[in-house]
């Protein structure tokens, strides 16, 4: 009897739920073409076009021959696609005495960027790790000085550094430039790594100490494997920054070892002869290609590293 009563009771309860009342029910309907969406996507579209248009003009121009460019239709697609400007920009364009195009500058930039990136990240990550986890005496002062360094304009330091490099005997060499890039990357990279390592739970570090790992043991076996995203962020920042650098490249090197940016400037700004817009466009695109490729390959990790904060153990 009691059981039957119980079943009756649940049936009644279910029945009362199945009777739906008037009015809104279930998921809220979403209109695709609401006023809000139109404004939102409209703005995004306009802004996107604004930023993409120059790139479009560059690509289109670089694929045209000079007679077609002289017609003056900047936005029209090329009638006759030609890759000649690209080849010329890479291999035969003249800058000063050399007529082997941007290829020389490209390899110079590679030889500058790779050691600078590796050196600066290696030093800055250890700096950040020491500042975050081993609070040595004077750590705060050291950190403050380092951060202040990030706010001093480069131009102020240009000439003193020329003297320092000259005294060291590496003025006008790749080594000198690599050293300058590494030093100037230090403030921001150290800050980046310090903040990342601070977000790693302190207990992990304590556990490793109880387990007998030392300064380098914890760095290589615990911290490094956990920090791939932040290393990618640092790498992107440094590759982009050093590759795009013009100022240090032009001041601290000599024509034989000019980086790609300086060479590009020399091609574009040469005043003799005809202005070859298509070659200039191709050369500029070639120069910008490396940071772009780096970003597209590792962009996802970049975002993850920037957003990192919650490292779950």
């Amino acid at each position, binding site marked *: 009897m009691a059981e039957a009563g119980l079943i009756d009771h649940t049936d009644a309860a279910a029945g009362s739920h199945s009777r739906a009342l008037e009015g809104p029910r279930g998921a809220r309907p979403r209109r695709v073409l609401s006023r809000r969406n139109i404004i939102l996507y409209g703005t995004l579209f306009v802004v996107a076009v604004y930023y993409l248009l120059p790139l479009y003009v560059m690509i289109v121009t670089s694929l045209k021959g000079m007679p077609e460019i002289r017609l003056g239709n900047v936005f029209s697609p090329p009638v006759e696609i030609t890759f000649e400007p690209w080849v010329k920009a890479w291999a035969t364009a003249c800058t000063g005495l050399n007529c082997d195009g941007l290829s020389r500058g490209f390899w110079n930039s590679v030889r500058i960027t790779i050691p600078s990136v590796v050196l600066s990240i290696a030093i800055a990550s250890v700096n950040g790790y020491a500042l975050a986890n081993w609070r040595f005496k004077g750590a705060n002062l050291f950190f403050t000085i380092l951060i202040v360094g990030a706010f001093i304009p480069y131009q102020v330091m240009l000439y003193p550094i020329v003297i320092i490099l000259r005294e060291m005997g590496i003025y006008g060499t790749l080594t000198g430039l690599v050293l300058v890039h590494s030093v100037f990357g230090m403030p921001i990279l150290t800050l980046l790594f310090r903040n990342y390592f601070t977000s790693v739970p302190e207990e992990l570090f304590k556990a490793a100490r*109880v387990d007998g790992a030392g300064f380098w043991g914890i760095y290589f076996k615990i911290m490094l*494997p956990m920090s791939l995203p932040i290393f990618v962020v640092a790498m992107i920042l440094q590759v982009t920054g050093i590759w795009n650098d013009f100022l240090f490249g032009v001041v601290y090197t000599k024509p034989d070892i000019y980086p790609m940016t300086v060479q590009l400037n020399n091609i574009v700004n040469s005043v003799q002869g005809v202005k070859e817009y298509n070659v200039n466009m191709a050369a500029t695109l070639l120069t910008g290609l490396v940071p772009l490729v780096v970003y597209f390959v590792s962009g996802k990790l970049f975002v993850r590293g920037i957003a990192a904060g919650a490292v779950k153990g």
Partner: protein
Amino acid sequence: MASVSVRNLDLSFGDVKVLQNLNLDIEKGEFLVLLGSSGCGKSTLLNCIAGLLDITDGQIFISEHNVTWEQPKDRGIGMVFQSYALYPQMTVEGNLAFGLKNARVPRDEIKKRIARAAQLLHIEPLLKRKPAQLSGGQRQRVAIGRALVRDVDVFLFDEPLSNLDAKLRAELRVEIKRLHHELENTTMIYVTHDQIEAMTLADRIAIMRAGAIQQLADPATIYNKPYNKYVAGFIGSPSINFIDGTLEAASDPVFKAGETKVDLSRYAFSGNGPKPGPVTFGIRPEHIFMDKAAVDEPFRANVEVDVVEPMGADTLVWSKLNGHELRFRVDGQTPLKKGDRVKVGFDPARASIFDAETEMRL
């Protein structure tokens, strides 16, 4: 022979004194719980013993060695943390082996010790997994295993169960107790803010407040004879009733609060005997009985029920005794409602009386 001994320990961060002149001796094989609310310095003390914090003054001995200046790895300790602190990129096996590899223990010895720890903690099927693939309880088991394989004399637990849900916490609590029985001669120091963990696990409890130990005694003494008002109020849930009044000791000692008079001739005064003056009278809710059960109690009174909190097994009743708040516990099935007048009674011998000024037990 003391296994861990802390002598005149001072710790300051700049001007802030966190621990002051702290002394503590822990016997070999003892289970000591450091209990206190957050910010009382209990975890700090544990970190000092582990060597993770440099102390300002004093000495620390572990197994008769002065380890005051030793690195954590050389102190012969294993430590378990609240957040597990497992190395996320290593497998469970790698986590267990990490400390042994650093100590250059031979490979087959590492295997042997991991196998033993895994068997003891029932984590054999998990050895090849990464920490992210484990549940909270499993992670904490691995963390305990990491301390276990180090084959040390002293285990330090820093709130190891606080991140787990209530059911798992109870399970793992029993397992830690079992582990302590199995590992004879292993000293365990356990930090917690959970008094149930403290009462169930400890051989002795050290109750800490503001960087000082308030009372260091076995759980029964802490519960029955709290050394001061803070300890009495901290231990016990629901917490003890406090009634302010005066102590009169003309002939037989009597506690007076307004119209309420409690005969204290059965109360065991400590030290110098009853000292007349303002006092606080404390009686635990579970030591107050109602109706028929109250008949035989030496002290009886009528109270009015104010609030009733049913908790299933028993019910907590908030009542007024001549204007003073009085909480007591009755069987969960007792029908009571607001406004009822009931008879309650208790034995003053089970009470605790504290000096109103010094807050010390009389």
